[in-house]
C-alpha cells in the first residue's frame, strides 16, 4: 500500500471514475458514436436499401422513418462524414445489399463536395481506415493504391473491440471546455446529436444558423472543384450496379438556397447535366427542390426536416417501383 506506483494508479483510477460517473450527459445521446461508426464498418450484406453519402446523408435521412413509409424493408444509412462517391465507397455500399433481396436499392445523397478530389483523398471514412488498418480491401483500393495498406488487415479486431468497448470509450471521451461549463448550467448551446443504430444521426445546432456557411463553402472548393474523373467513375459504377440488378437512386441533397447557389458557382456543379448523365447511366434521379427543408446549420437538415425528407424519399421510391421501375 505504501508503494507510490500503486498509490498513483489508485488515485488516477478514482479520479477517472469520479468524472466518468458524474460528468454531465453531454450533447450526444443514443448509441455511443464510437460504437456506431465501428458497427457500420462491420455491417454485412443484410439490407434491401442502403443510403450512401456524406454527413448530409447521415444527418438527413432516417431509415426508420423510411421503413414506416415503404413497409417492412431493411434499410441502413451508410453515410460517413465527408465521404466521397468513389467507386470503392460505392462498391462497399453495394456490398451491404442482401443478394437474396428482390428489391435491392441504393440511394446516393449527392453533394458537390462528395465529388471533389479532396473528399476522395481525405474523407473521414478513409482516414478511419488508415488509423485502424484496412481489412476491407474494396474500401481502400482506390484511395490507397498501396499493397501494404490494403493487405494490413489484422486490426479488424480493433473495429470489433470498438463496437464492444464503444460505450466505455464514450464514457471516457475527452472533456471539452463547454462541457465543463454545462456542469453547472446544463447545455444551452452547441451541437446536439442522437445516434440511431440504423445509422441516422439526428442533429441540431443551437442557436441555429451559421454565419460562416457561405465563406466556408468558398473555402472548401478553393482549388477543389468537382472532379470529372470521379464523376465519370461514379456513373460507370451506376451502370454496373444497375446491371447487377439493383435500383440506384440519386438526388441533390437540399440545402438553403444561398448556400446551394454558392456551392454550384464555386464547385462547377450543374444538376441538370449531372441528372442527365445519371439517368443515362441507368440511375433514377429524384428532385426534392420543390419543397424547403429546414437546416439547423445552413448545411445539414434539422431532425424534423430529415424525417420529412425521409418520408418524401420513401414515397418517391415507392412511386417509381409502382410505375414498374423495380428490378
Amino acid at each position, binding site marked *: 500500500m505504501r508503494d507510490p506506483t500503486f498509490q498513483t494508479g489508485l*488515485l*488516477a483510477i478514482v479520479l477517472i471514475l469520479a468524472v466518468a460517473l458524474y460528468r454531465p450527459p453531454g450533447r450526444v445521446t443514443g448509441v455511443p458514436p464510437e460504437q456506431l461508426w465501428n458497427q457500420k464498418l462491420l455491417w454485412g450484406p443484410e439490407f434491401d436499401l442502403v443510403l450512401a453519402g456524406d454527413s448530409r446523408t447521415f444527418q438527413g435521412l432516417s431509415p426508420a422513418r423510411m421503413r414506416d413509409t415503404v413497409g417492412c424493408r431493411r434499410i441502413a444509412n451508410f453515410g460517413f462524414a465527408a465521404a466521397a462517391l468513389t467507386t470503392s465507397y460505392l462498391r462497399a455500399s453495394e456490398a451491404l445489399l442482401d443478394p437474396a433481396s428482390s428489391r435491392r436499392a441504393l440511394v446516393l445523397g449527392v453533394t458537390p463536395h462528395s465529388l471533389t478530389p479532396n473528399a476522395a483523398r481525405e474523407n473521414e471514412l478513409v482516414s478511419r481506415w488508415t488509423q485502424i488498418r484496412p481489412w476491407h480491401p474494396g474500401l481502400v483500393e482506390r484511395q490507397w493504391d498501396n499493397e501494404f495498406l490494403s493487405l494490413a488487415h489484422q486490426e479488424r479486431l480493433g473495429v470489433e*473491440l470498438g463496437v464492444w468497448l464503444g460505450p466505455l470509450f464514450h464514457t471516457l471521451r475527452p472533456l471539452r471546455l463547454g462541457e465543463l461549463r454545462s456542469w453547472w448550467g446544463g447545455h444551452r448551446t452547441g451541437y446536439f446529436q442522437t445516434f440511431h443504430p440504423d445509422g441516422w444521426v439526428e442533429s441540431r445546432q443551437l442557436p441555429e444558423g451559421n454565419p460562416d456557411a457561405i465563406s466556408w463553402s468558398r473555402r472548401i472548393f478553393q482549388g477543389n472543384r468537382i472532379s470529372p474523373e470521379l464523376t465519370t467513375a461514379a456513373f460507370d459504377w451506376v451502370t454496373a450496379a444497375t446491371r447487377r440488378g439493383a435500383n440506384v437512386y440519386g438526388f441533390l441533397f437540399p440545402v438553403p438556397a444561398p448556400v446551394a447557389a454558392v456551392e454550384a458557382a464555386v464547385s462547377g456543379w450543374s444538376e441538370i447535366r449531372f441528372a442527365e448523365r445519371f439517368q443515362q447511366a441507368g440511375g433514377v434521379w429524384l428532385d426534392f427542390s420543390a419543397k424547403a427543408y429546414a437546416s439547423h446549420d445552413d448545411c445539414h437538415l434539422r431532425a424534423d426536416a430529415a424525417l420529412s425528407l425521409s418520408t418524401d424519399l420513401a414515397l418517391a421510391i415507392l412511386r417509381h417501383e409502382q410505375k414498374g421501375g423495380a428490378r
Partner: protein
Amino acid sequence: MRYNSFAFLVFAAVFFATWPLVRGRDRSRWVALTLFSFFFYGWWDWRFTTLLAASGLIDYWAALAIEKWRDRRRPLLALSLGCNLTILGAFKYAGFAAESFNSLFEALGGSAWLPVLRMLPPAGLSFYTFQAMSYTIDVYRGRLAATRDIFHFFSYLTLFPQLVAGPIVRAADLLPQLTWGRAVTAEQRWGGLRLMAQGFFKKMVIADNLAPAVNHAFSAFDVTPSAPYWWLVVSMTAFQVYGDFSGYSDIATGLCKWMGYQLLPNFDRPYTAASMREFWTRWHISLTSWFRDYVYYPLGGSRGTEAMTHRNSWLTMLLVGIWHGASWNFVAFGVLHATFLSVERVARIPERLCKLPLGRPAAVLLTLAQVWLGYVLFRAVSFDQATRIILTLFSPGGMDQAGLGLLRPALPFLALGVLWELIAALEPHKWSVTATSGWRQAQIVFTAVLIFCCVYLRGPGSAFVYFQF
C-alpha cells in the same frame, strides 16, 4: 503498434505479466524480449520483420567476423555498412534520388528516364539501422566485444520500447544491462511510471491537441498572409514535435525502467538553449551524439583549421537533415542549421549576448527564432510552401481573424507546452524540498493528475511524428 493504442495496452499487460517469469535466466530473457519485440513491430506489418531480421543478422555476423578476422576487419565493416545503407537507401532515398536526377535531366533539356520507386519505409528504419551500425563500428574499433548469443544481440537491436522511434541506444550502454536479471525495485517502478505519465501527457495532451491547428495551417492551399498567424503556427509546430518526440522517448525510457534498464536522456530542455550549438546538445541527444561520434569526429571534428571545422559541421548537419527524410525540405533544413552554426562560430553572438544584462533570455529567444525557421522547412509540405511561409514571417501584415479563430482552440495547449518547458528550466528535481515526504505525496498527486489528463484532455489521437523516420 502505437503506445497510445488499445492494442499496446493489452500487449504491455501481457509482457509485464510474463517478464518476472523470464527475467531470471539470460537465455529466456533474451528470447522473450526478441519475440515480444518482433510481435510489437510485426503488428504494423509482419513482412517488415524480415527486413529487421535481415538487417540484424548482417550486423550480428559482421561483428563476429570482424572479431575473428581482425586483419580483414575493414572490408567486413564496409560490407556491413554497405548492406545497411543499401536497405536504408532503397526504402527511404531511392525514389527521391531518382526524382531529383530526372528533374535535373529535364532542366538540362533531356527527358526523365530513371524509374521512380516509391516504397513505404518501414517504421523506425533509420533508428534501428543506425543502432545496428553503431554496434558493428564499435566492435570494429575494439570498444565492444561482439556478443556470441544471437538472442542477446537481437534483444538489444529490437528492444521494443525504443525500436520504432528511438532513442538510438548504443550497444555499449545496453548490451551489458541486458545481462542483468535482477528484480525491479519499487523506486525503479515509480520512476518509470512518472516518466511514462509525463511522456503520455506530452504526446496525448500537448502534441495531439496542437496537431489539428498545425495540420490545418500546413494543408491549406494558400499561405495565410499574416506574420503573427505563422509565428503562432510555427510555435505550435515546435511544441507539437517536441511533445510528440520527447513524449515517445519518455515512454520508452519509462518502459525500460520497468524492465530494470536505464536509457540515457534523449532531450534536455532544448528550448532553453542559448545558442544553436547548445540546442543540438539538448535536442534528440542520441541522434546528435551518434553523428558526433561516427561522422563529425572521424571527419576531424574541430581539431583542424577553422575552415575544416566548418566543413565538418556542414557535412554532419547535411546528413542530420537527410536522416530526417528524403526531400529537399530536409536538405534545406540541414543547410539552414549548418549556416546558423557557422555564423554562430564566427560571430560568437550568443557568447557576447550572454555577457549583457538579460542577455541569456535574449540569446534563448534568438536561438528559438532560428530553430523555429528550421521547423518551417521541417513541416512544410513543399519547398515552395516553406519559402512562402518564411517570407510571410518577416513581412508586415495584420492578424487574420479567420486564421486566429482556427488557432484559438490550440492556444491553451501551446501555453501548457511553454509552461512545461519553463518549469523544467527551473530544474525542480534539484530543489531541496525533493527530499521531504510532502514532495513525494505531491508527486503522487501530480502524476495521477497527468494520467487523468491523458484520458480526459487528450487530443485527436494520431501516430507519432517520428515513426516516419
